[in-house]
């Protein structure tokens, strides 16, 4: 029987907004990786002494480094938002035999996020 | 090519799947196949909402279920069949539970039961208000665990092969390819469901075109009690989508134009705020639908673009009860009617719902043709008589599906084998006829869809909730004429691949035969009983008509109606009393 099979376009993820969002979400991982590289460079600079640290600070002020970091931050935030949104799908938390509603699980994640961010900022800026 | 199976089941709905599993359980050596014009899980059983009756509660008894069924049937059922039915229903429902059916539960973990129309006790098992859906999928998925059950999905059966009073198989079209094939078998079980689509306004799915009834009728088996067509009192006005009786069982009220619970005017009891069994809104369907007609005549219904309506009030139940017990009702109302039953009234009107009649069988599902069995809505055993009680049909599919499956398995085990040459020749004739149909061009500009809608209108006006000699005679004439016009009708589509035009044409030809048999039986029965209400003979007449009508197809294609006395075991005919 000859059946018609629709070919899949190379850029299939442009066909639906939700697919595009998905691909962007997945690409956020690249910026997560970039952050790790940046972090390791920072650690290396701090370990190398105060001059190297100053140099690192200078370099991080370059317009293109800032630009990358702005984009990276946007992607990382996209990651955070989508990650928290999807977390309750995999996790079924039971409290006293009742399933905790998904919305509460999401809110829980955001609370944790705020607290952890505050702690990190405090440690760094103290 | 000719395939052979020991037992061939036509239909993959509740009855067909249960029958196939029963064959496999009875005799694992037998090869059983299911032929279905849609994938089994699309069968109409999927739409059943309310529940399935079977005695479960401590305060209930088999006798009470039997009595409710017998009186509900207006004493036209066979009481031996009813006794077998009520005795085996609970077991079948439990069996389904063991197969995983997600029945709604009581807090202690036992299955729950709810009230239903015409039933004196709570005995209707339910899976929210998607009972048929869950039952069908449970059966289908369980059938998957029997690798030896072969399926012909989306094959359309066009003819039963019968030779010398014995069934040998079918001719069917594989819809996807247009391939026509003869499939032979030692025993055939017809489980093709009802024929609501003979009418214009029905709760029934598009596939319910009475194929099996016509197949058997054409093959020489009689149809029984065809004049009894059930109108369900609560369908949504445009689509005919059913609002389940469970809505009333949970406490819903029927209101006329003035907000008045009009059922109290029709000898159905007195209104009380909470539902009372066998009373008011929980009366039987025939009486409720008849009450609607009287309200309409008194001008107390509301006129809408889609005909007169009354209103179903669920508001006092509150969102919690509705979401827990009737979520599908809420979903259907919001999708198809744009209303929310939690705050608004649901417009409803009576709608063709179920065929009490069908292929004549004994209590083992056997038809007068040897090796031919029938079960489910297509069959008439009969436990439904002149009016089926809500929630008796799903368990009927299970109980008599099982019985037919067992009987067919025994039969096939005993008489295996050889298919006479005449049968194969018959099969080839049918294949040629189908080839001709495929090439059929219309004489003139007749569209068969127009014939279909005229047939539906004819049935509604001729054999609706109320009928009389004149309306029926007129309908009979019109149907004859439509049969003639049908002979000249053609199809647009002459290709083989998934030709739904051809299928619809064949369905119409089946429906025309079924429609004629309904009218013929209704014309002969000069009394009023259950769903058959003749304004010219308004009283029940047990002298002449405490009997099943049996219609045989005569050589000229016209039906010949005879009568067969009903079997009475323990409940002599009495008055049907509700609300008192």
């Amino acid at each position, binding site marked *: *029987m000859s*059946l*018609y*099979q*629709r070919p*899949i376009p190379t850029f299939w*993820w442009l*066909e*639906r907004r*939700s*697919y595009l969002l*998905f691909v962007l979400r997945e690409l956020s991982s690249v910026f997560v990786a970039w952050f790790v590289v940046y972090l390791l460079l920072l650690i290396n600079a701090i370990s190398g002494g105060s001059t190297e640290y100053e140099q690192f600070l200078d370099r991080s002020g370059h317009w293109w480094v800032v630009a990358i970091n702005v984009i990276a931050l946007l992607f990382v935030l996209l990651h955070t938002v989508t990650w928290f949104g*999807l977390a309750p*799908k*995999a996790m079924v938390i039971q409290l006293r035999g*009742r*399933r905790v509603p998904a919305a509460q699980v999401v809110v829980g994640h955001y609370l944790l996020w705020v607290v952890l961010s505050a702690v990190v900022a405090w440690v760094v800026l103290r | 090519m000719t395939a052979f199976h020991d037992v061939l089941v036509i239909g993959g709905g509740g009855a067909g799947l249960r029958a196939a599993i029963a064959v496999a359980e009875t005799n694992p050596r037998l090869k059983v196949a299911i032929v279905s014009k*849609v*994938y089994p*899980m*699309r*069968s*109409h059983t*999927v*739409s059943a909402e309310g529940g399935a009756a079977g005695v479960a509660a401590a305060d209930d008894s088999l006798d009470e279920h039997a009595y409710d069924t017998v009186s509900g049937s207006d004493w036209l059922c066979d009481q031996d069949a009813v006794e077998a039915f009520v005795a085996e229903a609970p*077991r079948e429902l439990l*069996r389904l*539970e*063991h197969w995983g059916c*997600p*029945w*709604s*539960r*009581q*807090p202690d*973990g*036992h299955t729950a039961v709810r009230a239903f129309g015409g039933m004196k006790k709570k005995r209707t098992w339910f899976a929210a208000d*998607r009972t048929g859906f869950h039952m069908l*999928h449970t059966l289908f*998925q*369980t059938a*998957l665990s029997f690798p030896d059950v072969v399926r012909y999905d989306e094959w359309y059966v066009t003819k039963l092969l019968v030779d010398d009073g014995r069934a040998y198989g079918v001719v069917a079209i594989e819809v*996807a390819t247009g391939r026509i094939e003869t499939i032979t078998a030692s025993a055939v079980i017809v489980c093709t469901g009802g024929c609501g689509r003979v009418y214009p306004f029905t709760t029934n*799915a*598009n596939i319910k075109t009475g194929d099996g009834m016509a197949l058997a009728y054409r093959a020489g088996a009689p149809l029984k009690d065809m004049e009894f067509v059930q109108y369900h009192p609560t369908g949504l006005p445009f*689509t005919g*989508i*059913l609002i389940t009786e469970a809505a009333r069982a949970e406490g819903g009220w029927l209101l006329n134009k003035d907000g008045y619970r009009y059922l109290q005017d029709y000898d159905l009891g007195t209104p009380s705020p909470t539902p009372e069994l066998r009373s008011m809104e929980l009366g039987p369907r025939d009486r409720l639908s008849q009450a609607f007609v009287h309200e309409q005549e008194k001008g107390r219904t509301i006129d809408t673009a889609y005909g007169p309506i009354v209103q179903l009030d669920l508001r006092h139940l509150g969102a919690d009860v509705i979401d827990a017990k009737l979520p*599908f009702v809420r*979903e*259907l109302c919001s999708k198809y009617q744009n209303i929310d039953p939690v705050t608004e009234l649901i417009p409803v009107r009576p709608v063709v719902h179920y065929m009490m009649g069908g292929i004549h069988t004994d209590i083992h599902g056997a038809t007068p043709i040897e090796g031919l069995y029938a079960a489910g809505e297509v069959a008439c055993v009969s436990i439904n008589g002149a009016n089926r009680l809500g929630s008796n049909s799903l368990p009927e599919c299970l109980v008599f599906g099982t019985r037919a499956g067992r009987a067919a398995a025994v039969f096939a085990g005993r008489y295996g084998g050889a298919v006479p040459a005449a049968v194969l020749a018959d099969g080839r004739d049918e294949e040629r006829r189908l080839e001709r149909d495929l090439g059929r061009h219309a004489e003139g500009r007749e*569209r068969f*869809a127009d014939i279909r809608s005229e047939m539906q209108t004819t049935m509604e006006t001729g054999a609706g909730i109320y009928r009389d000699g004149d309306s029926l005679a007129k309908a009979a004439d019109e149907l004859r004429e439509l049969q003639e016009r049908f002979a000249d009708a053609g*199809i*647009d589509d002459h*290709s083989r*691949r*998934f030709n*739904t*035009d051809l299928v619809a044409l064949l369905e119409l030809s089946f429906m025309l035969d079924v429609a004629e048999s309904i009218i013929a039986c209704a014309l002969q029965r000069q009394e009023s009983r259950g769903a058959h209400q003749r304004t010219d003979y308004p009283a029940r007449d047990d002298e002449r008509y405490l009997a099943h009508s049996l219609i045989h197809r005569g050589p000229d294609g016209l039906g010949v109606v005879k009568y067969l006395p009903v079997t009475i075991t323990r409940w002599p005919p009495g008055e049907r009393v509700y609300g008192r």
Partner: protein
Amino acid sequence: MADEITLEVARYRPDQDTEPVFESYQVPLRPHWAVLDGLTYIKDHLDGTLSFRWSCRMGICGSCGMTVNGDPQLSCATFLTDYAPGPVRVEPLRNFPVVRDLVVDIDDFMDKLPKVKPWLIRAVDSPVEEGDYLQTPDELDAYQQFSMCINCMLCYSACPVYALEPQFIGPAAIALAQRYNLDSRDDGAAERREVLESPEGIWACTFVGECSAVCPKDVDPAGAIQRYKLTAATQTLKDFLLPRGAR
């Protein structure tokens, strides 16, 4: 409101078309009319050769899935007035081979479904005479959502992974496996594990989530799959870390 709307319907007639072409039809635009009503109007009054599947017209049989203006939908539960003034594009479900017009071939799903053993498996079958297997309403609640699947295939049609990797068992079949795994009466989780944990099983899913977004019955197959990933991964860790007996 205009009283007509245009349906642009994808036609594929294998004996005359090599690929689908669109044909336009004018159908009445009436309140309560679903896209499916438009299609049956075409079939009955304009062009009997148009082929599509439908049956219950109440969103429960799962036959009538189509792509309407780019989205997978049940055509009986998608209303013309929501698309006014039109035109409305009606195409077959994506990701499935097209048999004809709006009819797709779902045999792939029908073959995969039995592989996940979507039926109740008991360690010990008790006879029916002993009564029901007890299950509290909460235990029922634990899997009920996943039992709502009508096999309409909208999720497969929306899942890009299924498009790219046709071996993927796919959202509905996995959700149905989970429906039984989470049923308190079932002991078959171990038997279903091999298929579900194969590369064509849960691990192929990248959590696009569109399956759940388009599901007309709120089955949430995406959730079913992610939950099973967590279960499977923990199980693997346990298998690895704990000595045989202690599992």
